């Protein structure tokens, strides 16, 4: 029999049971180096072999904002809650793309990394965490763009109210990430066996985006549409984000509490599902 002289982390037992949530999380602490290397890889490989390099981080939101501006502001004449169109769309797009990219990457995590995961073991949760950090890095670069555009608008177009709520923005970003990772881990676990879910992701993301307040404000909705938009847990996040930035938007406290509970619940369930799946998903995928 194996003696128990060594510290318990040195003795591993491999059987059909999944690792516990606690083991899975404590395992992560000894893999910080790998985490940073993954973040670096994600960040660098994004713009390798492009002429414009990191400028692409700015170009993506600029292009999308321009399209939305002409399509929804000029042509469809949708309300922007009294904000200049550019600020309304840019703020919505910046936070939404952080959410959607993190969700897409996390949900595809097991399928896309099946080759590595099938050959070597390291805590799989390192990968979504590295996606979180590289997403955060990209978001902070894009927040500079948002800040620059806001300053230009403030001085040259129309000033907006700047309030102390501005300092709540980090919490909003964290809440976005929690919700995104939670949903992503759930979808990643389910789509291992039933690939249909992966194929539905495109429509799912579109549906999520159009049923939240990226291109129209909550104040412009009514009736059944209002109910649907309120049910989307991203709504209060985006509304709060605009509120904290420009003091524009509808923040309902009950709605915010719903979003917070939803996000943490989804993360917890997502983690549990993921841990149950990752132990032997390479046999199924």
């Amino acid at each position, binding site marked *: 029999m*194996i003696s128990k002289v060594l510290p318990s982390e040195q003795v591993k037992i*491999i059987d059909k049971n999944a690792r516990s949530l606690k083991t899975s999380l404590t395992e992560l602490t000894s893999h910080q180096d790998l985490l940073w290397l993954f973040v670096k890889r994600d960040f660098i*490989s994004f713009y390798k072999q492009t002429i414009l390099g990191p400028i692409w981080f700015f170009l993506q939101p600029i292009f999308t904002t321009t399209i939305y501006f002409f399509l929804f502001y000029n042509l469809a004449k949708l309300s922007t809650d009294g904000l200049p169109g550019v600020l309304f769309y840019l703020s919505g797009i910046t936070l939404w793309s952080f959410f959607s990219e993190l969700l897409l990457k996390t949900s595809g995590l097991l399928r896309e990394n099946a080759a590595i995961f099938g*050959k070597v*073991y390291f805590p799989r949760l390192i990968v979504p965490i590295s996606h979180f950090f590289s997403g955060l890095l990209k978001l902070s670069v894009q927040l500079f763009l948002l800040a620059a555009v806001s300053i230009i608008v403030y001085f040259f177009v129309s000033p907006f109210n700047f309030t102390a709520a501005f300092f709540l923005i980090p919490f909003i970003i964290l809440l976005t990430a929690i919700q995104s990772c939670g949903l992503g881990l759930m979808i990643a676990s389910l789509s291992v*066996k039933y690939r249909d879910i992966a194929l539905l992701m495109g429509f799912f993301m579109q549906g999520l985006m159009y049923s939240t307040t990226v291109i129209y404000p909550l104040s412009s909705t009514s009736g059944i549409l209002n109910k649907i938009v309120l049910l989307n847990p991203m709504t209060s996040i985006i509304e709060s984000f605009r509120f904290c930035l420009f003091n524009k938007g509808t923040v309902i406290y009950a709605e915010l509490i719903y979003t917070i509970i939803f996000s943490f619940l989804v993360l917890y369930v997502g983690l549990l599902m993921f841990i149950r799946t990752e132990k032997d998903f390479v*046999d199924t995928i």
Partner: protein
Amino acid sequence: MSIVVEANKISKVYRLGQFSGSSIGFDIKRWMAIKQGKQDPLLSQAQENDRTSSAGKDSIVSSLKDVSFNINKGDSLGIIGRNGAGKSTLLKILSQVTTPSSGSVTIKGKVASLLEVGTGFHPELSGRENIFLNGAILGMKVKEIKNKFDEIVDFSGVERYLDTPVKRYSSGMYVRLAFAVAAHLESDILIVDEVLAVGDAEFQRKCMGKMNDLGSSSGRTIIFVSHNMAAINQLCNKSLFLNKGMVAASGDTSSVIASYLNYNKVVENFEGDIPENSSLHGTGEARFTKLRIFNLNKEPKKKFGFGENIFIDIELTVNKKIEQVLVGIHIVNNLGEKICMLTINSNYTPIDFEKGVYNMSFQFGDILMPGEYAFGLSISHFSSGADIDYIENFSQFSISRDSSNKDLIYPWPTIHGIYKPNAISELKKIV
């Protein structure tokens, strides 16, 4: 001796066939059975894994069945077995990539597994960046990699290309760099799957040397899977022979290799008929049907004296006209290594066969040293190299040290080599 790996009755079952709507139904049934405390239906329905038999479309096979073994600290364990015997599954379980369906493995110490060379290399990143990334994926800390960086670069021999993206590397360079990283891993237990099958001969020698060093000098435990019996023999002191997911033999390497080769021996009758199922692969256009081995007096024989002439007759049945093919008769030693090849025409040119039955006769003299040997037969297309028929390890025979020829005796008590070349030699007194 302390045990560092203890496998206790591990089994692994897989479901074959496609996942589809009906598999949801099975999932629910299985879940209910487990909830009610019954045995997992996946385990109870499992069949023996035999890839040649055609069972139902959606059948469940067991890839490992009640496999138990222990590995002591500092041992090198070789794992051998035919394709599909469960070797890779076992390695996956040991490296924590997947879990067993039942049973457990207890592992003491840090494990590094090398099931593939270059896992996690990112094509866009430079060699330098990939050394760090790959090292970290395999479980090294950045500090450790920094300390060993020069050694790794030196071992790989790709110093000039360190800052080039690895997608521009030749496949040889890629493999060199990847193995160099893996070889400098610091772990208590190293798991290696046939990675040595890549790279040129010189690099393979370097890898084997490195692995030998790792095992002997640093007291590290090594688990090594290979089809190359010579490599297993050189590297491993203990071995495990897996057959159809079960342990068929375990213990000292030489005895395990012997039982592996013995198992693979094709059963033959007195007439030398080659059973149809002994073909390892082939297209069926032609088949070796008989191999007879006899001496000068046409007596069928299995034991020859040293230097005695050996005659073989091979019957080849050609089912349709085949053009431009090569026929090779190999002699293999008791480690399964090919030691020489005879062909029907000595200049190795391809030949054509009409439909029919052919007989090929060979005679060879004093070319083999005393030992155990067997034949391998192959017929393949010249242009594509695709095998038409391929038989391994057929018709064992031995050469003893006794000689019927008074002029040729084998005087040494031990065996020196396997092959006795016909060299012209001369001895002169010069002073």
